[in-house]
């Protein structure tokens, strides 16, 4: 299968996989944060939350690798960076965290930066050699 290199070629299925990847990442981080203080405290209900979060995190890692085998990182990265918005929003709702205006500004810079990083050509090495296509 030809690897997808442009965002307008992105099939709906892979787009949905990326959305699922973002949502799972958010869920995993939330659950791990909630249960991290009760890692080995079997009596506490948050104990289960932590290990569910951990399982989702590991599953999500393989999902991400699978997505990257189908599409270019430059296509996946801008969409994946939406978790930088989802996580603070989730932290406000579920963990009652306060996100200050300065932190929101930091977030905007980070997402903008990720967009720029993903826009850059990735096909050349330091000595000008071209990246060879995989067999």
């Amino acid at each position: 299968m030809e690897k997808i290199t442009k965002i307008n070629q992105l099939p709906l299925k892979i787009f949905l996989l990326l959305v699922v990847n973002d949502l799972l990442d958010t869920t995993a981080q939330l659950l791990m944060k909630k249960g991290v203080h009760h890692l080995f405290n079997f009596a506490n209900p948050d104990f289960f939350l932590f290990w569910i979060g951990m399982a989702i995190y590991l599953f999500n890692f393989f999902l991400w690798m699978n997505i990257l085998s189908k599409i270019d990182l430059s296509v996946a990265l801008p969409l994946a960076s939406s978790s930088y918005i989802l996580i603070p929003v989730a932290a406000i709702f579920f963990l009652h965290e306060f996100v200050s205006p300065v932190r929101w500004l930091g977030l905007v810079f980070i997402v903008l930066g990720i967009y720029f990083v993903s826009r850059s050509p990735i096909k050349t090495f330091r000595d000008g050699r071209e990246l060879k296509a995989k067999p």
Partner: protein
Amino acid sequence: MNKALTLVLIAECWMTIGQICFKKSANRLNTQLWQYPTLWMGAAAMLTGLLFWLAALSSGELSFVYLLGSIQYVFALFAAHFFLDEKINATKLIGTLLITMGIILTAVS
């Protein structure tokens, strides 16, 4: 220095080492992948990074720790330059500078 910040920096160092190892393995994908030691070194580095990440999560707010985690983009830029011979171009540099500014803003927030 802030404890959560320190832990995120350590975690992301390990994660970057893991990424470099994975990329080195993926760059020679013609025989069986599991035979490459870099793949296993990468997995070990990732797991070590995950432990420090959990320590960071337990000592700071999620919205703080997660945003700081984007320092990995900055680490990866330099690591890829030195260990994978990838070229740093203007767009990448602007992107990483923007991310760095975002991290500084988050760190003082």
